[in-house]
């Protein structure tokens, strides 16, 4: 069977890869958007924290025998706790300054984290086995879908939509959105805003670590796995605009799919297509697809 002169196996295969990449773009840009919303900083170490998630899962499996399922819960908590520590000791001092200092600080942290892991483990990737339940494939008739990949897409969707629901539809989310608009007023109502800020950063970092654990069986675990993906995620964020949570999710999945399609029809451009789309969006709608210009 062929579609537009492309074997359907190849087309669906690349679309699936696009969807998988899109799941990670969505999870990572969601975390960035949540952090940016309240802290007004861009978390440059997001990619390093994603890598940290994958490494914690890898090390706890190989050194302590902790399996994938426990890792899936434990790793985000652990890495999120380091995020809380970073916020408490460093980021907190920068809120009164230009927001660009937050970017520079987290860039420095990313260099340190990546440097330490590169020093210890070199640059080559290490495999992480997917859990036994998910070994094997679903036969969908028109293509084979590896079970683990289906799981990643489902979990990513659930986590993204769950976060959206909490922020947009619950009382906690309402406090969060209010604090984004006017922190001092919310504090005057007796809400502990500084603690909320700390926990929000921890939550965003935990999301990155969760993405890292889920990525470990798909991509190889390597110290530089977060370095390049974070730049793509920045472009995703510029395209979507950081104003809306749903925008980050939709743009993440959408651009992943477009990237997958580009691999089928014009492979040479697959590395750059997201940046090209970013350029076009900047020309047509500078505030981003879902954003509002401030």
């Amino acid at each position, binding site marked *: 069977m062929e579609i537009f002169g492309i074997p359907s196996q190849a087309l669906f295969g690349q679309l699936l890869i696009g969807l998988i990449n899109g799941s990670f773009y969505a999870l990572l840009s969601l975390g960035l958007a949540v952090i*940016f919303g309240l802290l007004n*900083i*861009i978390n440059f170490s997001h990619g390093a924290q994603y890598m940290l998630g994958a490494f914690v899962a890898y090390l706890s499996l190989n050194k302590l025998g902790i399996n994938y399922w426990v890792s899936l819960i434990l790793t985000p908590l652990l890495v999120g706790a380091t995020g809380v520590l970073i916020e408490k000791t*460093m980021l907190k*001092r*920068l809120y009164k*300054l*230009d*927001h*660009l*200092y937050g*970017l*520079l*600080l987290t*860039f*420095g*942290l*990313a*260099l*340190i*984290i*990546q*440097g*330490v892991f*590169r*020093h210890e483990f070199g640059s080559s990737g290490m495999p992480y086995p997917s859990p036994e339940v998910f070994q094997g494939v679903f036969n969908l008739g028109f293509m084979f879908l590896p079970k683990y990949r289906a799981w990643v897409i489902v979990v990513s969707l659930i986590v993204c939509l769950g976060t959206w629901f909490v922020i947009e539809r619950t009382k906690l989310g309402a406090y969060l959105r209010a604090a984004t608009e006017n922190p001092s007023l919310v504090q005057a109502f007796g809400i502990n805003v500084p603690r909320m800020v700390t926990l929000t950063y921890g939550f965003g970092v935990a999301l990155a670590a969760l993405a890292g654990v889920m990525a470990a069986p798909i991509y190889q675990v390597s110290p530089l796995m977060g370095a*390049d993906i974070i*730049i*793509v995620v*920045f*472009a995703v*964020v*510029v395209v979507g605009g950081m104003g809306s949570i749903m925008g980050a999710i939709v743009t993440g999945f959408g651009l992943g799919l477009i990237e997958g399609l580009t691999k089928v029809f014009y492979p*040479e451009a697959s*590395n*750059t297509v997201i*940046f*090209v789309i*970013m*350029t076009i969006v*900047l*020309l047509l709608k*500078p*505030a981003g697809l879902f954003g509002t210009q401030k």
Partner: protein
Amino acid sequence: MPMSNASPTVFKTQSFTHQWVAFAIMVLFFAIAPIWVYPIFLMKVMCFALFACAFNLLLGFGGLLSFGHAMFLGTAGYAAAHAAKVWGWNPEVAVLFATACSAGLALIAGSLAIRRQGIYFAMITLALSQMVYFFYLQTPFTGGEDGIQSVPRGKLFGIFDLSENTAMYMFVLAIFLSGFTLIWRIVHSPFGQILKAIRENQDRAVSLGYDTDHFKLLAFVISGALAGTAGATKALVFQLASLTDVHWSMSGEVVLMTLLGGLGTLFGPVVGAAIIVSMQNYLAQFGAWVTIIQGLIFVICVLAFRRGVIGEIAHWLKKPL
């Protein structure tokens, strides 16, 4: 909130004699240092110093954080290497041509990036430079991972043979000092004052009737072009243009040099470049440690040392440097 406000240093004096003194010391240093220090190393320092000064013009004086300045350094490197090696152009023409290429790229990238402000500006420039990186990785003329190797230094004006290190040193010194004085002049020009006004309060600059986008774009193009001059010179010094110069880590390094030396100071980027290049030279054998230490310097500078080396000295002397 402008970045300079982090460490408000109010200078009473309006005379600039101390800047002339500092300039004389710098010129003297680069004139006699080759007696003791390996000239290639000094040329590398000067190339990065010019790169950092160009970057500082944008961030320190214009308040615009570009996280993609490596694209100008690398583009000019490839352009100069190609012009000198394949077309056989004289070095001065190759450098001028490469500078023009970077200026053109800066015009395109700048007109896109200034559509957004602050953090978005940084992310857009980073994404654009990553796009440029992938372009150079795939396009044939750059030689991919190998880069353009054994670029001839050629004869300056067809007369002076630059393959000799002393002649090359004079050439690099002349380029560096011209670039530096140009930036110095720009900072004190009416255009430089408007840039600072935009940095301090863009809305007020708009209300005073300035077309701020126009000034920001001009600053971006000048900064990109001078970064290009640095990249072209560097390619001739090392007779090599490679992907390293386009990679995002290079964009991070120039931010670090400027931050460490002193944001918004004239001489800070030169000092910062000297420190970082020396550090890389001495620590090269330790591999990943260079990255770790650079990260640590970033964190320390942001948390506790926002004025930078020269900024602290200027604060202590109560005179702008």
